[in-house]
């Protein structure tokens, strides 16, 4: 192995965090370039890491000792197949979101603020990467808070033109802090019982004390805390307002990557930290997460149908999509976990693309996202709207798109686990999601425009990243093996922690 590859885990996380400080201090006009370079660097590094990983067996794990302190005393960055996959999704989507952010910010944020905004942007990005990478339960909390405080700041930047963003940001802050504190309480209980904070060490030591009540209290607090962060029903209520009122670029970043990291942490906590305790993760998955995910799927889809604002509609649909991911994980089987990871990757591409597209379309009508305001923009902005449509079709799971692969693997996993009723619910909600997508299509293409029929200007820096994601949706819909194989590796790693 080449020597520098072993430093990649640290580079991927530290690069955006360092550049964040530089971006905040330098004049605002450098903000975007710096953010683009930092995210590109992280994305490139994670692709190298993933390529390296794909050639190895699924049990392979890369351990990076921060400061040279060996675990369990020092903080460890641990990368296995699951980590590498999620890191690649986050850094790749973060890079594409950064590409589109300059044009999307142009109408919404004063150019003097951009330096500091990109500082917070990179802190969010780096925080999420660190969250996924770290193998230290307490360090995880710190990264939770780095990313969540920075993303609250980003959401609040919407306050310049829509003051409801401030309320959304405040609620996001309070709820996020409570979630993170719950997680810390849980870690405290586990630490009291085992005397260690390293996740892999915890996984070994927790089964030794599994007759003690505090272990279960710790589990309950940790899982609840992470569920708040991952916006799993019924702790999802902070998400739609935050996404709905945040600046468009921020919504793109958060929708594409933020909840994905927390969802990954959820399976990590259940499968790795508590994986050694017999049947306990299975029980929680089966009796807590499956029912909640089904409610999220139905509720999110139905609320999306009744939403009159396109941005909020997509935010509500995110609740349902998170439900699909959790449902996959909830099966607790190899196939289920694989389906969950596939949808983590695919949903990031789908929602990232849809929000970039919506941002581009909304810019042409003065940043409004109410359905009525978007009348006719589809015909007037064909490039952007077609890309948006492709991602939309992928969302409902049309064959030849990535969304179809997600649904296929999810339904296969559910059938394999023998839950026929759940298959019906998944198919039903997929059918329902056609309704809200159709409402968007109807408004954008078939409703007469409010202000003439001429072509509207389209920006390269919006439709280029959008088309990257749209083509990725088609590519991974036809040649799905890349993502399914990586997800299979990830699922195998997590199943390894279970009996």
């Amino acid at each position, binding site marked *: 192995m080449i020597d520098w590859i072993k430093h990649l885990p640290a580079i991927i996380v530290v690069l955006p965090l360092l550049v964040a400080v530089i971006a905040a201090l330098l004049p605002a006009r450098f903000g975007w370039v710096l953010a683009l370079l930092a995210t590109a660097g992280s994305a490139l590094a994670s692709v190298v890491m993933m390529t390296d990983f794909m050639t190895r067996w699924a049990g392979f794990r890369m351990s990076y000792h921060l400061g040279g302190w060996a675990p369990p005393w020092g903080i460890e960055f641990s990368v296995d197949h699951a980590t590498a996959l999620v890191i690649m999704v986050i850094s790749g989507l973060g890079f594409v979101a950064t590409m589109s952010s300059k044009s999307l910010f142009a109408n919404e944020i004063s150019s003097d603020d951009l330096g500091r905004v990109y500082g917070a942007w990179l802190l969010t990005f780096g925080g999420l990467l660190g969250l996924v990478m770290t193998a230290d339960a*307490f360090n995880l*909390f*710190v990264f939770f*808070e780095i990313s969540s*405080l920075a993303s*609250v*700041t980003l959401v*609040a930047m*919407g*306050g310049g*033109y*829509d*003051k*409801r963003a*401030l*309320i959304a*940001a*405040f609620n996001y*802050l*309070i709820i996020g*802090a*409570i979630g*993170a*504190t719950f997680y*810390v*309480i849980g870690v*405290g209980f586990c*630490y*009291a019982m085992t005397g260690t*904070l390293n996740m892999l060490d915890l996984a070994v030591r927790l089964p030794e004390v599994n007759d003690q009540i505090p272990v279960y209290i710790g589990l309950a607090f940790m899982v609840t805390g992470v569920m708040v962060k991952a916006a799993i029903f019924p702790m999802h209520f902070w998400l739609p307002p935050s996404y*709905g*009122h945040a600046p468009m670029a921020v919504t793109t970043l958060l929708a594409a990557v933020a909840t994905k990291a927390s969802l990954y942490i959820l399976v990590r906590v259940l499968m790795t930290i508590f994986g050694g305790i017999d049947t306990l993760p299975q029980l929680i998955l089966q009796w807590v997460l499956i029912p909640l995910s089904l409610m999220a799927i139905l509720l999110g889809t139905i609320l999306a149908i009744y939403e009159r*604002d396109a*941005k909020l509609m997509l935010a509500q649909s995110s609740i349902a999509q998170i439900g699909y991911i959790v449902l996959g994980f909830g099966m607790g089987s190899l196939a289920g976990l694989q389906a969950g990871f596939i949808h983590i990757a695919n949903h990031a591409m789908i929602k990232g693309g849809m929000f970039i597209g919506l941002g581009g379309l909304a810019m042409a009508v003065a*940043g*409004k*996202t*109410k359905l009525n*305001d978007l009348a006719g923009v589809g015909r007037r902005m064909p490039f952007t709207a077609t890309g948006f449509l492709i991602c939309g079709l992928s969302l409902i799971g049309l064959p030849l798109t990535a969304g179809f692969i997600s649904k296929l693997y999810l339904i296969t996993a559910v059938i394999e686990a023998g839950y026929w009723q759940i298959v019906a619910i998944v198919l039903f909600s997929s059918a329902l999601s056609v309704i809200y997508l159709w409402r968007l299509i109807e408004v954008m293409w078939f409703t007469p425009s409010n202000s003439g029929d001429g072509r509207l200007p389209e920006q390269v820096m919006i439709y280029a990243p959008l088309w990257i994601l749209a083509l990725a949706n088609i590519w991974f819909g036809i040649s799905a093996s890349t993502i399914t194989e990586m997800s299979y590796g990830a699922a195998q790693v997590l199943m390894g922690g279970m009996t």
Partner: protein
Amino acid sequence: MLDQLLSHWNYIIVVLLMMIGLFIVISSMNLVKKLIGLSLFQTSVFLFYISLGKIEGGTAPIIITSGHGDHGSYPSHDILYSNPLPHVLILTAIVVGVATTALGLSLVLRIKASFNSIEEDEILAEKRVMKSEGRSS
């Protein structure tokens, strides 16, 4: 039973503080009071961790030497040390808590400037007016 409760009185305070804090966050309409509740809630967790690290009769974890041998001084073995790690963790958590409160207060300032109120019911009422007037982002 009572003895056990009394000997764990610091944990009882932790639970009380935690419940009071969480209750204020949920029930209070005033945004600043919400932040105060949140701080109380977080502080209770700090106390919880510190209590975990304390050993009765334990001293600060600075190695105390008991004498000198041929290879320099060697640590004394009959001294109880408190666990320093929870303190270090909580130092980090305090910083996070301060950052949360600071960000929350600055948001309250902006909310006050925009809505001219920091009472949640009044703000929600104005939000509803905004919605019915159809002013969108």
